[in-house]
């Protein structure tokens, strides 16, 4: 009897904990407005569905560089995929993210293997969650907002524990509604990395956004990584593009 009661108590506690976790944040007009601002910022950075090319540059303390070029596609809130175009040693490797699931396809290995958000398929300061980034508003809620004059400082809190960074501090240009700097922190407020958004560029069709993101990390002193965007274009894709079976064929989407 005691055992049954104890088990019932555990099950009820677990259900209550889940219900509590699923409850929406208490309505706060200022935070609701800030969350809408975050959605607007996402749309200014990229359309809901788009293709783009990116160059990643890892820079070592002695100035030595390693470059990667990727073709990336994204659809909706939770689907991103990329394929490496260079260097030759990485060509044909592709990555896929469906919500919190991530896979890496290596042509010789064949079958896609699961990877984690904190790993890095390119080495350097950018990890997989930076390379296969979803919309900020898909992964974070605004927990606090500060007016800094020309900029707004958003304190973002991850919606789930599976998000790579528990907290983001995001400086937002008020007039352009674009990020200028993001600090990525752990749950204990330890700084993991800083991303600086630079060189705002007109990509056409109303997409005006920073084309360069520089990042460094106190965990990798002296090292820096840079992500350069090119050819960001609104494009619709079928859902089937974002599947394990299609990963070897991602390059065929390039036009």
């Amino acid at each position, binding site marked *: 009897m005691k055992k049954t009661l104890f088990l019932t108590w555990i099950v009820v506690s677990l259900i209550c904990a889940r219900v509590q976790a699923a409850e929406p944040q208490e309505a706060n007009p200022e935070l609701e407005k800030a969350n809408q601002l975050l959605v607007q910022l996402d749309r200014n950075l990229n359309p809901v569905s788009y293709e783009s090319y990116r160059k990643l540059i890892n820079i070592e303390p002695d100035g030595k560089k390693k470059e990667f070029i990727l073709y990336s596609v994204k659809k909706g809130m939770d689907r991103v995929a990329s394929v490496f175009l260079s260097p030759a*040693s990485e060509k044909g490797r592709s990555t896929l993210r469906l919500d919190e699931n991530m896979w890496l396809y290596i042509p010789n290995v064949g079958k896609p293997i699961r990877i984690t958000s904190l790993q890095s398929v390119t080495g350097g300061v950018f990890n997989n969650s930076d390379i296969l980034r979803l919309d900020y508003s898909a992964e974070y809620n605004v927990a606090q907002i500060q007016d800094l004059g020309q900029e707004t400082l958003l304190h973002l809190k991850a919606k789930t524990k*599976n998000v790579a960074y528990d907290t983001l501090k995001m400086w937002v240009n008020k007039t352009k509604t674009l990020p200028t700097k993001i600090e990525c922190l752990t749950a204990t407020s330890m700084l993991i990395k800083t991303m600086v958004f630079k060189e705002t560029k007109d990509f056409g069709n109303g997409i005006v956004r920073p084309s360069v993101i520089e990042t460094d990390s106190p965990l990798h002193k002296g090292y820096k990584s840079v992500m350069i965007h090119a050819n960001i274009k609104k494009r619709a894709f079928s859902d089937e593009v974002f599947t394990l079976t299609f990963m070897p064929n991602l390059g065929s989407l390039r036009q």
Partner: protein
Amino acid sequence: MKRWGLLWVLLTLLIGTAFTQENYSFELSEIEEKPLNLGGYVELYPVVRGLNEDSAAHKLKFYDRDSERLHDEYNFSALVNGSYTKGISEFRAIVNTNVTHDDLDWSEDTTLYEGVVSLRPSPRLTFKAGKTTLKWGKGYAWNPVAFLDRPKDPTDPELAREGFVVACADYIKSFDGPIKTFSFTPVLVPVYDHINEDLGTITGLNVAGRTYFLLYDTDIDFIFLTGESKTTRYGVDFSRNITSSFEVHGELAFIKNYEKKFIDETGTLFSRQYNATSTLLGLRYLSGSETTTIFEYLHNATGLTGGETGDYYSFIDQGYTTYLSSGNDTDLKRASHITGNQYTRKNPMQDYLYLRISQKEPFELLYFTPSITSIVNMNDKSFSLGPECLYTGVENLELRLRTTFLVGDSYTEYGEKQNDFWIGLRARYYY
């Protein structure tokens, strides 16, 4: 004088700015899509092997010739991967050439790994015909459900492998809900003279298929192969991330009426038919300090028992004794060719453990990854232990220093291998 001072300050500022202002370029020519693509690698791989002169494999290979304790081997490889794309069609070919020179002779082997035409009328549908690799299964070192793939080398599972000639299609469908993805891959596999001969008995057409689901964030495959060349077999595999850094995977393969051939200690050939169920369970864990651990357990029901391998080693020993006393090498030659590659294949027995631990960039040594791999034969308690270092700091160049120690008593798998250690440096340049 004041003017020179101002000029110096101005120059200093300009030079300083030039060095602090990073200019990043990204030219459109770098992303231009070309119909014809060529790539691949060339590789130099010198290896020194420490021969185990008492082993069965050494007796079989060197019984009629002298051998040094240390055996040099030089391997040169070139892999060419080319593709031509036009509209929805693509032709891809992968050709591999290996040239090996050792104390005995030169050997050369050129193999078409893949040569396949693909048609992609939509992202949902792909048709393929030609020689290609399917690579089914979720295991890292072994794949019991990979019914249509050549076996992996568990000591180097990422090596490119030769495919089989097939005609297949991929149909993909995505959903909202618990099943996010469904895909079906039907495969036709012909086995005739000079086509897929090594797949099984030489007869007509075989049919295989794989159905894949992404269900509740878990990858699940159901696989089958049936026809006249091989007995009917079914497989299921899964892979799931329990946490963002902890993945589990497994495979289950059922082979109906599997025929195992083996010999006794006198060399008499036997065969036994039975239903074989093989299993694989594995995990991959990434720690906060970027240590990756891969662990797998394999039960291979098609493998040999300790008694069967013991009889084989005993037969070789007797054949070697006969050769030494009479010069008659009939039994040794027979042992070399008997039962196909049943005894000489990688991991021929039934129960194995695989462990690989790799540490990415320790002590802030960028692009440097040391690792250690061990394979334990649980049936005879012999094992291999292989530390290695990988350096990828130079663009398109991969340097891999590998060594492996093989440890086991006599009449055990690793105790009867040709070497008791080997060390090699693989330099691979991608183009």
